[in-house]
């Protein structure tokens, strides 16, 4: 790879790592706006991570090293996934044929270690949260795979970066139904993976309504900082999958593209905040139905690519 | 001109009767319009009307037979119906209770005449899509008739009838669209034009379209396995209405299938269609046979007998050649006999107030003696005992089957007929013979009035006469129809 490209891809990854907590601030501000409040500052997550990194964690007596390793491995997996993600339609730091599968399974790994850490505490409450989380993943993962498969068929390549850089060369007029359906399916999966409303309420205080929060609840200090930061980066990465369909590389210079893309992500965060404010959380039994909608959309998208 | 009159007269009479308050005037209009229809039909015996509305309406040989049967049937039904409506009115006046409230008599007469009118449109229609419109219209006109007695059971029957037949007919519409696609030559879907241009028709579309048409209209015709609405609707409707449904409406659906078949013959797909006909004909006969055996409701038994006869009719068309003659003859006989049987069933029901076979014995004795005689006579006629036209029809079909060396078909055909005969014999014999059991709720004022007996008796007489002697008019018409459909 040329030096310029390498520098640029390092810049991309740094941008992702630096800017992603900002999106959470936007979401919270949007929700506050809808609720008529002023809301927390835009850089709140940065402050939180900084504060938490200086605290020490409290561990219970029943845990083992798995519990301690959980957040670390999780963050490591997310950061590895960051290496694979395209930015503004440009290639990522690492890309190879079939890296979609690695990408999706890195998320699986994150979820896996989170579940293990939760089960490690020996509490039945954590077990409940873990089982709920995994149940939703069962429906979300096939949908994600199928959507990616549809995109791969459209572009003819199987590398994440290559797909998203080719997406803009392919005319929207012929493939618009596929794109729209895939965007819809991945958006639903995004909401599920990031534990947003309507799947899960990230701000809930009631333990019985928690799904993802359950697994996070026991961590403190640096561990919690890792988890929060990891979820912010995960938000960005999964958001790229959706926003990348709409905001890609155009022929202008990379600076324009980058700023456009960041603006696109901010817009995306707006939309997520709006969705969170407008919708109500689904009943627990209805969440699989919601995810099956995503599955149906991705199957349809794949069917349309076979014309 | 005549064709228009045949349609307009009952149409306007029907629409007007919705608004007439006075029962006597309405009943007068009722009989008057169906009588006028019969007179106009008899005019067609002497001179066939020409094409009307630039070929959209015409009366060919096939239609002529259907028209005669329908018109006769309706007239007999209106005669019987007058007395029936009168009895119903008296009954509801004597025992005013809401659980047996009847539909407004105006609605009944109105829908009745509208049914006659729409059936006439079906018979005359030469445009394939307009035929569809008319058949759907007959479904809608007959639905309120089934729900005359407002009971839960008749409501269920009406709902099933509405939904199943409408879905079937929607399928037929899809089939018609397929036909339109196949008809690449011209845009006109007139029967004659399609037959003429049949050589250039796209065969796969025509095949698929015909299949859909067959399934759709076959649902309305009562072929198994699409017949599921038939036993319910024909048994829960008042007997007058059942007579019409069995005797005339099923024929209209049959006509729809025949029109499609005519196009297929011209396009050279007749063997494909005939296989379908034979298959479903045999299936219908077998279904009917199985369900008649254990039957406990005599009107349901008559309904299944209709399924069986529709199977026989379509089987005859499927065998082709001379069997078409037998098939149409059988249809003629079946319509008249089944209508007569339903009229008698109505008498029995108004006396015994039950539809359960086990509760009725000894019909030949007591006040129901004429009905009992007719009941048994009808049984003999419908199962094809010798002087009946149905016998002749079945015999001709059988002969053709043997001629064409369709031995398995013959075997199943005869076997099915045999089982039906056994099942019906058990029922009819047990109902007519035996000591007169005190009925569950006998109606003490029942009398076998002439007007209740005469229509059935006349119909049966006609069937017997047709079995023995054909007027040349009938022969010409039947032969002409057989030529169009026989695929010689």
């Amino acid at each position: 790879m040329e030096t310029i490209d390498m520098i640029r891809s390092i810049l991309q990854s740094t941008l992702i790592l630096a800017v992603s907590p900002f999106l959470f601030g936007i979401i919270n501000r949007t929700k506050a706006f809808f609720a008529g409040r002023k809301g927390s500052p835009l850089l709140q997550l940065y402050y939180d991570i900084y504060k938490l990194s200086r605290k020490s964690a409290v561990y219970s007596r029943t845990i083992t090293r798995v519990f301690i390793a959980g957040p670390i491995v999780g963050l490591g997996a997310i950061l590895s996934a960051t290496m694979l993600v395209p930015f503004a339609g440009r290639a990522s730091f690492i890309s190879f044929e079939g890296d979609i599968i690695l990408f999706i399974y890195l998320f699986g790994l994150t979820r896996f270690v989170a579940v293990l850490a939760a089960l490690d505490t020996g509490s039945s409450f954590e077990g409940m949260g873990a089982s709920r989380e995994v149940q939703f993943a069962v429906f979300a993962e096939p949908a994600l795979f199928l959507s990616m498969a549809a995109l791969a068929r459209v572009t003819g390549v199987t590398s994440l970066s290559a797909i998203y850089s080719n997406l803009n060369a392919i005319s929207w007029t012929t493939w618009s139904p596929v794109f729209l359906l895939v965007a819809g399916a991945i958006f639903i999966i995004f909401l599920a993976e990031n534990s947003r409303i309507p799947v899960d309420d990230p701000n809930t205080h009631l333990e019985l309504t928690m799904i993802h929060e359950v697994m996070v609840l026991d961590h403190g200090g640096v561990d919690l900082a890792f988890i929060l930061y990891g979820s912010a980066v995960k938000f960005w990465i999964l958001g790229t999958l959706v926003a990348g369909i709409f905001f890609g590389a155009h022929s202008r210079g990379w600076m324009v593209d980058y700023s456009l893309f960041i603006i696109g992500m901010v817009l995306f965060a707006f939309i997520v905040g709006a969705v969170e404010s407008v919708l109500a959380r689904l009943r627990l039994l209805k969440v699989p139905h919601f995810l099956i909608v995503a599955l149906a959309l991705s199957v349809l998208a794949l069917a349309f690519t076979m014309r | 001109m005549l064709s228009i009159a045949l349609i307009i007269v009952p149409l306007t009479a029907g629409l007007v009767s919705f608004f007439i308050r006075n029962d006597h005037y309405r009943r007068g209009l009722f009989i008057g319009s169906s009588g006028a229809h019969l007179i106009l039909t008899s005019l067609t015996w002497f001179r066939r009307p020409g094409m009307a509305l630039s070929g959209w309406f015409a009366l060919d040989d096939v239609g002529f037979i259907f028209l005669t049967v329908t018109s006769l049937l309706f007239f007999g039904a209106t005669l019987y119906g007058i007395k029936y409506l009168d009895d119903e009115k008296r009954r509801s006046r004597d025992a005013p209770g809401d659980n047996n409230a009847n539909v407004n008599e105006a609605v009944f007469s109105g829908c009745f005449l509208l049914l006659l009118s729409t059936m006439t449109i079906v018979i005359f229609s030469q445009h394939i899509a307009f035929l569809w419109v008319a058949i759907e219209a007959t479904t809608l006109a007959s639905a309120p008739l089934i729900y005359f007695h407002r009971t839960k059971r008749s409501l269920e029957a009406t709902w099933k009838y509405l939904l199943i037949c409408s879905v079937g007919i929607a399928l037929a519409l899809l089939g018609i669209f397929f036909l339109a696609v196949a008809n690449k030559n011209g845009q006109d879907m007139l029967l004659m034009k399609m037959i003429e241009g049949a050589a250039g028709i796209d065969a796969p579309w025509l095949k698929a379209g015909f299949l859909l048409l067959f399934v759709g209209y076959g649902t309305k015709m009562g072929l198994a396995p699409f017949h599921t609405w038939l036993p319910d609707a024909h048994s829960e409707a008042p007997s007058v209405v059942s007579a019409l449904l069995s005797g005339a409406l099923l024929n209209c659906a049959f006509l729809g299938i025949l029109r499609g078949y005519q196009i297929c013959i011209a396009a050279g797909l007749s063997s494909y269609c005939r296989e379908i006909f034979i298959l479903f004909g045999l299936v219908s006969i077998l279904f009917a046979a199985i369900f008649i055996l254990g039957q406990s409701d005599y009107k349901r038994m008559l309904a299944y007998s209709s399924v069986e006869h529709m199977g026989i009719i379509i089987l005859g068309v499927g065998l082709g050649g001379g069997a078409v003659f037998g098939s149409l003859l059988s249809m003629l006989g079946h319509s008249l006999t089944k209508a007569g049987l339903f009229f008698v069933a109505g008498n029995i029901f108004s006396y015994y107030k039950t539809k359960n076979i086990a509760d009725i014995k000894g019909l030949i004795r007591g006040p129901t003696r004429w009905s009992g005689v007719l009941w048994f006579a009808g049984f003999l006629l419908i199962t094809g005992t010798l002087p009946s036209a149905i016998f002749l029809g079945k015999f001709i079909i059988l002969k053709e089957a043997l001629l064409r060396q369709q031995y398995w078909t013959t075997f199943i055909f005869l076997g099915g007929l045999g089982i039906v005969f056994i099942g019906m014999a058990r029922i009819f014999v047990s109902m007519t013979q035996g000591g007169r059991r005190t009925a569950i709720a006998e109606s003490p004022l029942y009398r076998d009035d002439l007007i209740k007996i005469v229509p059935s008796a006349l119909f049966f007489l006609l069937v017997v006469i047709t079995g023995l002697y054909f007027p040349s008019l009938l022969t010409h018409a039947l032969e002409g129809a057989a030529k169009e459909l026989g695929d010689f």
Partner: protein
Amino acid sequence: MNSLIDLLSITILLMNLMMLSSSRISTCIRIVAFQGILFGLMPFVIHSHAIALGAMIYSIVSIGLKGFVFPWLLFRAQREANIRKEVEPIGGYPLSLLMGVAMFLVSFWLSSRLPYIRTVSSDLVMPVSFMTFFTGAFIIVGRMKALTQVIGYLVLENGVYLFGAALLIEQPFLVELAILLDIFVAVFVMGIAIFHISREFDNIDTQNLSQLKDWVNTK
């Protein structure tokens, strides 16, 4: 032009799926109404050249009937019967949704099997029309409330009509109007029947309508 027809077809497809997975009857009625309006607009989209006056009148009448009159009748029936939600179908709503997707795949395959007549520039319209047809049949078969069955019947007819529009089948103006009139009277009569059912049974659950059968062991 091509993509507009595609987009319309996809919208119809998604609406079918929405109807299959929805349990609220008012939602279903609104979707059917919207579908009717879209279908009425289809000829304007498919014909790139000018449309005959008759076809235009027919489209307007059909939009008026399917988009406004039918929902009015259905909402009235819903008010009379006093129902809001449908009973859970066999297999649940997710299964209905997946069946809808499966039906689309089947119709896609079917229309590739039919000898294709190049009359419409999009190859999505025919599969969607078949799928609408199947969806209507599925709704009739799978749902318990009589009102939903009527909605299924309307969807069925919509599918047949869309097939006609897709292949540019032009019937004489009178015939098309007559077909529309037929469907109108059918819905009207069915609405009356639903009214009677709700009065007779105090609900419109068609599971009540299973008294008539053969070989019932009454002895």
